[in-house]
């Protein structure tokens, strides 16, 4: 059994919460007491049917407002996979939540209401998922029951979306007609839509191939923590602990430490009290080297012939997440892999309109929930790759030094 993380996007009216409620219910991740509570609430509000959306509306303030205001994580499992859903709200002002939810997702699920067709919002969701390099996208055409399960409705939405998606980077797209409320094509195949021969949503989630999404070629090992037991039994033990961000590490491999450029060979790779013959993403391991070279937190192990170029000049797409706008000359703290430093905003090249993909070069600021292309100068060189190559070594967060709050998320275009 393996793990699939997916992010959902859609507005209150697209039936997203109902769909998640359906997935949880049909995979038995919902328990009797939770269902009873929801049935009771639905009845007391005079609904004709059980409102599955109530299952996922978490915080009381949200329940009162009837909207989801933050990323919520849900869990369910089938015999073949465990699923983690990052459930994000769809409103325009909540781009930051979608970016957050998409950052860890293997798959993005966008919902549209079959009666409405593609909206500005569904396009925006697809743009954000593609910016965050979520490798698999599912467009669920929901509420098919309300358009008499009409194939023409599905076809026209499919066509329109495919045309739009050519402008984006979406390696894998699946368009599925469903009714979250009635259960059509969610877990069980719909009897109403025999014209549709593709997979049900659950079948697709269970079988989508994610193994090749990770970079198994370019070795990237950000050192997190140096393990030195200082005990009699392990007097000379010195291990570099971290999580593999790319490539496959093996004992005997020649490695180079950055930024020093010193080289050595891997003496052994430890996973607790066992030695492993290989380490690959996303394993957390401890690497021992043959030579006693100076390596500490924030450094990176890679291969001598395949190393990122340390750089202090960073060109990145940034999603801004706080009320005070981002402006040139602003100074912020930056965290990239296990490195922390400071960054100066040198230039804001353009602001990207996530609805139209238009590049607005006149604005020199990024407001809350806006995304733009920004040039940064950092105090420490970043050991980074373009985000398209590696989502771990290509991403960073920006932190306001006064408040300590995370205010920006960055995806590196290139380093010069």
């Amino acid at each position, binding site marked *: 059994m*393996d*793990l699939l993380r997916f992010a959902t996007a859609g507005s209150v009216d697209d039936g997203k919460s109902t769909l998640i409620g359906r997935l949880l219910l049909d995979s038995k991740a919902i*328990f009797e*007491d*939770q269902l009873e*509570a929801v049935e009771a609430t639905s009845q007391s509000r005079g609904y004709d049917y059980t409102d599955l959306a109530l299952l*996922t509306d*978490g*915080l009381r*303030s949200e329940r009162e407002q009837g909207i989801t*205001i*933050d990323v*919520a*994580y*849900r*869990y369910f*499992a089938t015999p073949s996979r*465990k699923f*983690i859903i990052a*459930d994000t709200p769809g409103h325009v002002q909540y781009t*930051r*939540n979608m*970016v957050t939810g998409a*950052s*860890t997702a293997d798959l993005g699920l966008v919902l549209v209401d079959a009666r409405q067709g593609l909206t500005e919002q569904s396009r925006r969701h697809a743009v954000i998922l593609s910016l965050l390099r979520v490798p698999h996208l599912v467009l669920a055409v929901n509420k098919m029951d309300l358009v008499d399960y009409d194939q023409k409705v599905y076809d026209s939405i499919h066509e329109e979306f495919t045309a739009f998606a050519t402008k984006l980077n979406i390696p894998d797209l699946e368009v599925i007609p469903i009714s979250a409320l009635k259960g059509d094509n969610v877990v069980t195949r719909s009897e109403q839509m025999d014209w549709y021969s593709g997979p049900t949503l659950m079948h697709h989630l269970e079988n989508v191939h994610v*193994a090749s999404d*990770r970079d*198994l070629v370019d070795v990237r090992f950000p050192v*997190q*923590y140096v*393990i*030195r*037991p200082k*005990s009699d*039994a392990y007097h000379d*033990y010195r291990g570099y*602990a*971290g*999580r593999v961000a790319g490539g496959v590490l093996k004992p005997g491999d020649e490695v180079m430490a950055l930024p020093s450029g010193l080289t050595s060979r891997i003496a052994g790779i430890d*996973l*607790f*009290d*066992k*030695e*492993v*013959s290989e380490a*690959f993403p*996303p394993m*957390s391991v*401890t690497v021992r080297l043959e030579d006693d070279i100076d390596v500490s937190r924030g450094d990176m192990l890679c291969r001598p012939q395949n190393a990122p170029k340390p750089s202090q000049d960073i060109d990145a797409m940034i999603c801004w*997440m706080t009320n005070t706008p981002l402006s040139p000359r602003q100074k912020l*703290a930056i*965290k990239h892999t*296990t490195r922390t430093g400071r960054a100066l905003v040198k230039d804001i090249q353009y602001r990207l309109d996530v609805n139209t993909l238009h590049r607005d070069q006149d604005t020199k600021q990024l407001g809350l929930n806006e995304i733009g292309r920004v040039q940064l100068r950092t105090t420490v060189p970043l050991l980074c790759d373009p985000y398209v190559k590696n989502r771990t070594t290509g991403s960073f*967060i920006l*932190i306001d030094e006064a408040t*300590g*709050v*995370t205010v920006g*998320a960055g995806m590196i275009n290139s380093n010069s």
Partner: protein
Amino acid sequence: MTITTHADYRLSQLDELEAESIHIFREVAAEFEKPVLMFSGGKDSIVMMRLAEKAFYPAKIPFPVLQVDTGYDFPEVLATRDNWVNRLGVRLIVASVEQAIKDGVVVDDGKTSRNRLQIGTLLNALETEGFTAAFGGGRRDEEKARAKERVYSHRDEFGQWDPKNQRPELWSLYNGRIHEGEHMRIFPLSNWTELDIWHYIGREEIEIPSIYFSHQRRVFQRDGMLLSESEFNPLRPGETVEERTVRFRTVGDLTLTGCVESEAATIPEIIDEIAIARVTERGATRGDDRFSEAAMEDRKKEGYF
């Protein structure tokens, strides 16, 4: 020495969850001045101990372990706690609710549950010792209010959680910046479910308190729950004690933690039982969560685990 290989470069869900949690433990140890692991003796905090052990092996866990003693803890749980602490050679700090009542840190008005009095006791212990990060065993699948909890959950100088003022958490880049007097709650098990925890305990063959397994116990009914007979649990009129075959699904204050009738005596049997269980673990056996639908949200705001 064992060599393990992975032919297809895929991790099982348990290996991936373990790798993520180990990453979190190391990140906190590297970035925070004074972390502490909150240990309840329950299965989740035991899994946390195991992950911390793995994260720093062959070195010892580089932070102490803090337990809040309600005074109403199950003796089996305290025994397991001591075995773990001794085996790993970590420092154990016990913050006693009893002592906190005596010192006037919290007020026992006879109506407030021990679980609730733990909040003040815990916050006081964190403040006195100056801990800047406290690992907790909370999981997002436990309760609706926890579904939005961050891995790094910021607490203000009053130890409070503000659901509207949590930091966005992207990729695996955790932001551990805090101001003087504030601290961070860290939840390394955020993405684990109850079943994951049990599968992991089974795979790792680690010791958990015996009360999780089916046993004979003298119990009585109260508010639809089966509570253990105990000197701390005086019977009310109409309540009668009888012997049943039971086990506990969660571990807490024994005056409030109910057991369920069960024949599950091994981990595979417990997993089978949970796989078909139709009631969430908290809903079934935790009196303190049943007082209101938003009970957990309220306690979290005050600084509960």
